[in-house]
């Protein structure tokens, strides 16, 4: 286990109660996360990619301590309790998808940026003000924005403020859950540039979650691909993007339309090929090369060797 890891999760499991249809339906436990273990090194940008319902946001919520989970989460080597202490919260901060929902519409931007400092009782008034100005400069907005209300800002500017508010406590890890999905292309590019710059300049570790493989590839050093609550493939960004071994990752890559002139079509891989298997591989129903074994037992994550880094694949065929 790497000693310089900023975040480690071990066998994270999360369930939700599916009460089924009807008032008296027996409630079933549905697994949202099964045995998710990731390690993010200090200063690393780690990406999670997957489609809706794959559990990627649940993972981010577990990391932030916003939901119940079983398993273990360590921040800088220390196991953290489900109810986070202030010092842990200070080290792990978050940016979410919709900046409009994340800002208090009745408070000025300056108030929003000051709040974390007030809550954590850091510095004198003057020091707090200096810090706010410093952060505004960092996120590329001038100090006059302090007196504005969120509704006076564009989506991209609001997301900058959210990033600023999350950075004001100087966290070690920033959890960014689909931070550009609600933004227009040009505003999204500005936010991606900003995150990349902050990652490099402040040596900030990132847990970056997105459904868009191109965006994750652009920003992250390592990528984990999630499918139905499991990590199915994990490795360096280049290994995942250029040498994907899991059939699901391959299908995902083929489906992303790229202006470079690739992807975008399913080429007939549409309907389920077989009945899903309860104990087998999660991708069994859709996998083009599944064998009988795949339907009987879920494969483990195994290292297939990448470019000097580990490249984990959960597939018998890899």
């Amino acid at each position, binding site marked *: 286990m790497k000693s310089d890891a900023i975040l480690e999760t071990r066998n994270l499991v999360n369930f939700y109660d599916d009460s089924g249809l009807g008032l008296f339906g027996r409630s079933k436990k549905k697994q949202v996360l099964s045995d998710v273990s990731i390690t993010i090194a200090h200063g690393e940008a780690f990406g999670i990619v997957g*489609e*809706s319902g794959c559990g990627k946001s649940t993972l981010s919520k577990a990391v932030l301590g916003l939901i119940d989970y079983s398993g273990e989460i360590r921040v800088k080597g220390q196991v953290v309790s489900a109810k986070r202490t202030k010092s842990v919260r200070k080290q792990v901060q978050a940016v979410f998808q919709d900046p409009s929902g994340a800002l208090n519409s009745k408070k000025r931007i300056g108030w929003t940026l000051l709040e974390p400092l007030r809550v954590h009782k850091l510095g004198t008034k003057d020091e707090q003000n200096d810090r706010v100005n410093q952060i505004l400069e960092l996120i590329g907005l001038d100090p006059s924005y302090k007196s504005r209300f969120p509704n006076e800002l*564009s989506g*991209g*500017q609001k997301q900058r403020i959210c990033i600023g508010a999350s950075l004001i406590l100087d966290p070690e890890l920033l959890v960014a859950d689909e931070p550009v999905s609600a933004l*227009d*292309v*040009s*505003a*999204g*590019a*500005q936010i*991606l*540039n900003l995150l*990349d710059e902050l990652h490099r300049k402040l040596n900030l570790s990132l847990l970056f979650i997105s*459904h*868009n*493989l*191109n*965006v994750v*590839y*652009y*920003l992250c050093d390592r990528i984990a691909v999630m499918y139905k609550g499991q990590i199915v493939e994990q490795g360096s*960004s280049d290994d995942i*993007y250029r040498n994907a071994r899991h059939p699901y990752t391959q*299908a*995902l890559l*083929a*489906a*992303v*339309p*790229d*202006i*470079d*002139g690739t*992807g*975008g*079509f*399913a*080429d*007939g891989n*549409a*309907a389920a090929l077989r009945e899903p298997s309860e104990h087998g591989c999660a991708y069994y129903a859709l996998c083009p090369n599944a064998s009988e074994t795949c339907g009987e037992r879920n494969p483990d994550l195994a290292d297939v060797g990448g470019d000097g880094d580990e490249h984990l694949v959960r597939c018998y065929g890899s």
Partner: protein
Amino acid sequence: MKPDEKLLQVYNLSVGVQQGDRYFPAVDDIEFSMREGEILGLVGESGCGKSMTALAIAGLLSDNLRVDSGSIVFEQQDILHITEKEKVRLRGKDISMVFQEPMSSLNPLMKIGKQVAEVLLLHNKRTAKEAATDVRNVLIKVGLPDPDKVMRSYPHQLSGGMQQRVMIAMAIIARPKLLIADEPTTALDVTMQAQILDLLTSINREYKIAILFISHDLGVVSRFCHRMAVMYAGKIVEEGTVYNIFNNPVHEYTKGLIGSIPTASSRGKPLVSIKGHVPSVFEEHLPCPFAPRCLSAESRCFTEVPRRIHLNENHAINCVLAEKVSEVEYEI
């Protein structure tokens, strides 16, 4: 109709928002045309007027929106100035639409079979029995393998991808000549999006249905459309074949937009970011609304009206400095 005749022509169309006695243009003097069987992508960021253009063509503008000027000619007929009764006859039969959120477009209280058949009962004078056969066929066509089960289902019993397939089935069952698809894949996952794009491509090829494809996603447009028009703040700034525009973007906005998209080759390099932000519909627009953000803007860009210049028959731009930038060297 002769093969070179246009299916749809839009001339000098302006659509705006009426608020009390004030009028704000949202679509400002645009023109474009579509041939039979063509897929035209209308791209731009939110608020650029692309959806409003689509609604104007379908005759579905809400009461606070109005067409200020221009004309929309569909099969030699000006469809802006026809009666509501004639519009009803056109919609669903010759022009149909697919929207972004399939769930909110379907009637939650009506079974799928009945909903899809409605189009035929209204337009094609089919009996219920004949219609049911057609519905079954069209559901198979859009990739719903168990049509009888789907016909008996209510919308909420289907997944998002299946719902969108039903919407497409409904849109093509009367074999329209033009399908307007407004962000049909935006609410879907990428793998589902790929399947829907496959389906739309096969419909286009097989039935020769022209598709006006509205999207903010340049990646999708580059892979799916034949031609495209880029809109910014209510104006079409660049128009041409997808090949020409992606290989030789000329307008600064198009260049910026293409550069803003992370691709396999942009890793490690900063993305192009267009400074500033899109002006709101309610702000006063300059004659060239992009001038304040444009990298090549000169002082006259802030006063003069952009001109439309054809760089060749498959590429046009709308720019004050059009003559200057029109001397592009085509990289082929």
